[in-house]
């Protein structure tokens, strides 16, 4: 039921966080009963845009936004999400905002319960009204029926399957009779395929009844199936807008990643890489938020192997799982021999080394000096920098050697610090990252895992870090497995790049392939008509 009545009109909305521009003059319209698909890479500005529409306080706290938006022709300015709710915007979040110990009905009608009078009301006021359970159930069932799903209104949220929780959230927004615009932020990300289908059907039904929907998803086929129109955000710009019928996944993927290809150089290796070093078979890792569901790949000796993909798809889980930081199962063969999983000490002994994506949480001893940070792992795992007495019975650290090693890396990686005794906490992000690299190098590894090596550091440090990795690979023939959200970074350094989508490897491509192909893999469209090696 699409009409010409405009529900939401966005005019030149822009937003910067302390000078860091994330949205640049975005304008679009949503008509009554229309479903808009919003796609974009992580950090493209989708969430910020939705936060502005929903009036989240974080926007006001960081200096507001520029531009205007109009709801039903009226200029809207929300100081909090309550204002947005009153104005008729409903939002279903990626993470569930439900009370786990309450039933579906109670959650759907929270703070909008049907109430009955009793004598106490006359004395103490409205707050002592009784709940009208029967009427509440009726209203809840009514909202659930609108979705056309099978959901028990009496079921406690904690006992529900994930799909049903999602439906409860949506039903809550529907019950609010004023809701005219529903924002669904990756509602299908946590659902199984069949649940997602029901979800899509429910959304279609709502649209038919006149609800306008903004649908955010990484699953392109869902977007094309459900939405009337698709908008693509890239680096804060609205770069693409089209009716769903007139476009295809390739076109959307292209506009999603579409950076110019010329801004990266990749030097081909002179020598062919021959020997297989690491073979991963059906690896599963239970890392919260980055679950890996059975990946297979082989890395050659001396190779730089890139792992890319969107956030939350599982790319970070692979390195963390192999290093034994999160429970994992599957088969990992190193030089043809199977290695035991979930045993960090053992893996380190074999010559593995890891630079974590969580620099401050995992990668550093923030309240210890730089020299400790660099040498500790090598000391514990390989017994370097140790003096032994009584035939190895007593092992003491060799502070002199530790200092020497630290100074070597401070010089080599140009770590800016007052001395090797400075605490890691006092260093800048880029220098902290260099300390993490030095720690990994000090292990003299055969194979090095590096996760998000350039996250949160400035351009100069970025280049230095990447060059250090490259140099290390060339000079000592070390095998590097680099995981990064930045495709261009991977393409500039890797020999091959695996793209992870929904916990599996969607495909492995050489960096010379066009960015679009990588983009398609990221959003789970693996039927590429190219030469790409697809698994």
């Amino acid at each position, binding site marked *: 039921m699409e009409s010409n009545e405009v529900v939401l009109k966005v005019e030149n909305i822009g937003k910067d966080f302390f000078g860091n521009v994330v949205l640049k003059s975005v304008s679009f319209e949503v008509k009554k009963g229309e479903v808009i698909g919003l796609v974009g890479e992580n950090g493209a500005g989708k969430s910020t845009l939705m936060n502005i529409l929903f009036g989240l306080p974080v926007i006001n706290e960081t200096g507001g936004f520029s531009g205007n938006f109009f709801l039903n022709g009226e200029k809207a300015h929300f100081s909090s999400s309550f204002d947005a709710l009153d104005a008729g915007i409903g939002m279903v979040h990626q993470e569930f905002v439900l009370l786990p110990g309450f039933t579906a009905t109670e959650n759907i009608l929270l703070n909008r319960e049907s109430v009955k009078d009793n004598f106490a009301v006359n004395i103490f006021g409205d707050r002592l009204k009784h709940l009208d359970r029967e009427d509440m159930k009726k209203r809840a069932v009514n909202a659930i029926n609108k979705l056309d799903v099978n959901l028990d209104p009496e079921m406690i949220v904690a006992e529900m399957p994930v799909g049903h929780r999602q439906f409860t959230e949506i039903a809550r927004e529907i019950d609010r009779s004023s809701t005219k615009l529903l924002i669904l932020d990756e509602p299908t990300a946590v659902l199984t395929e069949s649940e997602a289908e029901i979800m899509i059907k429910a959304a279609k039904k709502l649209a038919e009844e006149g609800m306008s929907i903004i649908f955010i998803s990484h699953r392109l086929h869902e977007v094309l199936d459900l939405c009337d129109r698709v908008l693509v955000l890239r680096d804060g710009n609205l770069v693409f807008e089209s009716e769903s019928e007139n476009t295809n996944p390739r076109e959307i993927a292209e506009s999603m990643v579409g950076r110019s290809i010329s801004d990266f150089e990749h030097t081909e290796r002179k020598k062919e890489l021959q020997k297989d070093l690491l073979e991963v078979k059906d690896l599963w890792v239970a890392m919260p938020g980055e679950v890996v569901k059975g990946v297979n790949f082989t890395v050659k000796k001396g190779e730089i192997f890139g792992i890319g993909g969107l956030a939350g798809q599982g790319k970070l889980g692979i390195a963390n799982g192999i*290093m034994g*930081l999160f429970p994992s199962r599957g088969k990992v063969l190193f030089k043809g021999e199977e290695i035991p999983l979930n045993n*960090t*000490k*053992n*893996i*380190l*002994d074999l010559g593995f080394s*890891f630079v*974590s994506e*969580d620099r401050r*949480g*995992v*990668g*550093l*001893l*923030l*309240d*210890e000096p730089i020299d*400790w940070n660099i040498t*500790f*792992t090598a*000391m*514990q*795992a390989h*017994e370097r920098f*140790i003096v032994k007495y009584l035939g190895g019975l*007593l*092992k*003491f*650290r060799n*502070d002199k050697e530790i200092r020497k090693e630290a100074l070597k890396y401070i010089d080599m990686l140009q770590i800016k610090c007052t001395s090797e005794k400075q605490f890691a906490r006092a260093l800048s992000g880029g220098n902290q990252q260099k300390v993490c690299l030095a720690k990994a190098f000090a292990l003299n590894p055969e194979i090095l895992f590096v996760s998000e090596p350039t996250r949160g550091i400035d351009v100069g440090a970025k280049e230095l870090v990447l060059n250090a990795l490259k140099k290390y690979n060339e000079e000592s023939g070390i095998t590097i497995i680099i995981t990064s959200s930045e495709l261009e970074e991977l393409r500039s350094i890797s020999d091959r790049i695996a793209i992870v989508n929904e916990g599996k490897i969607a495909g492995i491509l050489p960096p010379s392939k066009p960015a679009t192909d990588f983009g398609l893999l990221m959003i789970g469209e693996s039927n590429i008509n190219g030469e790409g090696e697809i698994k």
Partner: protein
Amino acid sequence: MKNSIIESIEKIGWPRIIIGLFLASMFVIAPFVGVSVGTSISDVLVRFTFNGVLVLSLLPMVKSGCGLNFGLQLGIISGLLGAVTSIEIGITGFLGFLIAIGVSIPFAILFGIIYGLLLNRVKGDEMVVATYVGFSVVSFMNMMWLLLPYKSPDMIWGYGGTGLRTTISVEKYWFHVLNDFLSFEIGGVYVPTGGFLFFALMCLIVWIFFKSKTGTAMTATGSNPVYASSSGVNVNKMRLVSVIISSIIAAIGILVYEQGFGFIQLYMAPLYMAFPAIAALLLGGASVGKATIANVIIGTFLFQGILTMTPSVINNIIKSDMSETIRIIVSNGMIVYALTRRKKARG
């Protein structure tokens, strides 16, 4: 010049400077209100040797990230078991003291293992749980002191009763065996050389331990457990070892205390031993997540100094005996002060 003064003040820490100045002012006031400075200094020195090892016992657990050992009573009880067993055997002098240590260590290891396993299950809430462990174990031992089959007439209730007395004198056995070793008097000040030497020895052992591979791993575990485990360190094992070491040092610490104080105090007495030790450590500049041997030495000196001087000076000013009340106010006040001053351990 000005900057370097401020820097060194910040390095020592304002709390220590303020308390240090306060302590100094007490010594200045003392002669004017009729308190003998010589005796006071002796008191401070003697008390320092009593308590130093107990404060030192907190160090390994703080370093490994188990927090302040509010369950210090567990180690103390191991020491008490060693003490009463040594008296039951009846050997006097330094050998008797060594036997007490020898007997208490296996108990400390056993209790330490159980306590450590428990603390590994309650990560993040160690200090609250430890407090209750301390309380429970004291209550449990209240029964055991009555039931354990000790027979020495110096220890059991009078008139041939059964069960141990609340206070047992060590006068006939190993009273002052450490403190009187090489002790001397200079200008009316008694210096318990042996006590200092023993404390220094214990500090040296702990210092050397933290230079070892295991000690380094323990420090890293406390600093960032995730980092340590990603470096192949068994975090739970490190924590367990630290609890055992803490318990052993605490057992030795209470024996040092008893040989100086002259009495073994059973039943409820151990309950009140943890707080002063913790207060001293915090006062010395330690935080819940970080502590050094310097913190132990400075903290014990300042805390015992204040605890000795304040009551006697105030008593003489107001001419009535309030020493115990003032001692409680001062020591608990310092705990509160130190806990509010502590730096956030992590994040």
